[in-house]
């Protein structure tokens, strides 16, 4: 090794070597196996992928998944922005309380939260019973067992995922910039729209990406709150693996999801440095 190469070699890389090796062995290899399965089962060839253009079912399935995920992302990030913004401008003590509540909801199992929604919003749930007893409505409102129910459950679950990157981003913004904007004659609204909002753009994009990608794999929430009528990719893959035993179709859908996520990140990377987004550094 030449002296420059030696100088460039950082011994701390050795610390991440075990993780890198584990990822290569435990993650990359199985993914190759799944890609392989998608072009070999039941027959070698691209038959499974051909179904994507031939089968209306699959096209509808993918469209449902994308639609549900986009709506979830929109609402989770919008509501999450409000929460993060409020937290940033709350007093230190209040902020700590808010963060604790956020983290507790972040840690509660998705199953528990899904069933809680069922109890609250079901036909004979608390909300419907109350509304009926005070005479606002005569028939229960169908909040759950449909797409609305799925969206309520998913947005609720995803809000902490949106708040955390936004919070990290907002913390990195120097408050003196806003003061400068106000001192130069901008109104509150102008300061927010033209100064603060653009500065939080990396946070919004990071939160949206995180929420959208996590939403793609949702299984339990659509299965329960959708009443069987909102079929998303994860549940369909599970049915093809376990019930109809069409592993090729399952592997194909899994591969498509993986490729789409990678493609999504690649495209975004063309427009902005993803590193800065996840690094949380505004500059």
């Amino acid at each position, binding site marked *: 090794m030449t002296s420059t190469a030696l100088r460039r070699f950082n011994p701390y890389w050795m610390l991440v070597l075990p993780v890198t090796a584990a990822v290569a062995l435990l993650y990359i290899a199985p*993914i190759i*196996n799944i890609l392989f399965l998608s072009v070999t089962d039941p027959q070698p060839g691209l038959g499974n992928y051909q179904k994507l253009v031939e089968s209306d079912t699959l096209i509808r399935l993918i469209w449902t998944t994308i639609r549900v995920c986009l709506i979830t992302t929109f609402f989770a990030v919008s509501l999450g922005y409000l929460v993060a913004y409020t937290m940033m401008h709350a007093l230190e003590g209040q902020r700590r309380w808010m963060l604790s509540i956020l983290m507790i909801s972040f840690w509660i199992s998705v*199953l528990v939260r899904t069933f809680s929604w069922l109890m609250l919003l079901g036909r004979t749930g608390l909300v419907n019973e109350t509304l009926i007893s005070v005479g606002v409505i005569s028939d229960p409102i169908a909040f759950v067992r449909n797409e609305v129910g799925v969206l309520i459950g998913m947005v609720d679950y995803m809000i902490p995922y949106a708040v955390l990157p936004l919070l990290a981003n907002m913390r990195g913004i120097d408050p003196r910039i806003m003061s400068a904007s106000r001192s130069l004659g901008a109104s509150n609204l102008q300061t927010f729209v033209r100064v603060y909002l653009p500065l939080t753009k990396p946070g919004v994009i990071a939160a949206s990406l995180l929420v959208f990608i996590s939403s793609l794999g949702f299984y339990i929430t659509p299965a329960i709150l959708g009443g069987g009528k909102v079929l998303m990719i994860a549940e369909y893959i599970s049915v093809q693996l376990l019930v109809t035993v069409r592993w090729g179709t399952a592997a194909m859908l899994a591969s498509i999801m993986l490729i789409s996520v990678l493609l999504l990140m690649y495209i975004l990377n063309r427009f902005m440095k993803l590193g800065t987004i996840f690094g949380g550094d505004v500059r």
Partner: protein
Amino acid sequence: MQDKRFMQEMAVEAATAFQAGKMDRRTFLTFCGLAGVATLAVTTGNAEAAAKEIVMWNWGGQSEACHAKAIGTPFTAETKIPLKFDTSGPLQGKIKEMVDSGKVTADVCDADGFDAIALGKSGHLEPIDYTIVDKKRIKEGFALEYGVSVIFYGYAFMYDTKAFGANPPKNWADFFDTKKFPGKRSLYKWGNGSIEGALLADGVAPKDVYPCDVPRALKKIKSIKSDSIYWGSGSEAHDMIVNGEVAMGIVWQNRGKSIEEDSKGRYKMVMNEAIAMPGAYIVPKGNPAGREAVMKFINTAMTVDAQLTILDCLGMTPSNPEAFAKIPAGLQPYAVNSKENIDKVIFNDPVWWAEKGGDAVNAFLDAIG
């Protein structure tokens, strides 16, 4: 070998966690792939496991205690071989994965008739040895080459007596008639029972239900789409009814009695035209305990005593004709093969489901989505 077992257990754990929503899809597939890769890497398993135990692969819940009491106790008393359980649910895909991986850990699976046909055909099962299993103990026509219908269960529906007490629904035509019987309906998510019920409702004669005219059935199901919700597990079906989410709901017949009790008699089950499903005990190819021990086990499950204990404990109906007559009076209304129901139910055709079930389930999912 130990490694491989670890991989397999990890995959099973991962599947459980994934289904429970505790693990995301990507991690789950990683584990699946991991188990697959491990299988390729470790090609030789050990085949010399002796028949020191029988591992029964069932669906957990009550069934573990019930199977132990009904079959395990007499079997162990006779052979000295203990019975153990894997309660993760032997779905077709899981059985196929287990046999393909070369490391078979279960001896007998509490599966469906159509699983016996489909997996038998694809070479994943041991044929049943009818020199050990007594054919006379099995309902005629259900001693399959690769499986024994030890019990029957059924798809029946329950209705709200508060809504329809004066003029109760009597058949599938009433179930699908939301004008005469307004209210929500709950159906099984993966098509079984719903497809047959829809055909009967549409005027197909019971003897002509198979082969199923799937497009015709789906048209009927779509006609109540806005009023329908779907369940994926027995407990979900139970909750939908007991919580008053539906006016009528399809259930697994063996849960009917406990739902009637839980709802304090508000919901009643209709066994007329119920779809009787042959449950099948099947043996994964290369099962660890060997053929003889597991065949003896299946034969024990067919004894009248074991059959009546399962009925009492799980609500699953006997298959042994000798046990039909001994069904206690209190359980007669709920049992598929009791004197009062046996001529009213329609027996599922496992051959049709084995061949066309995959397409039917996918078409069904498309129709309700």
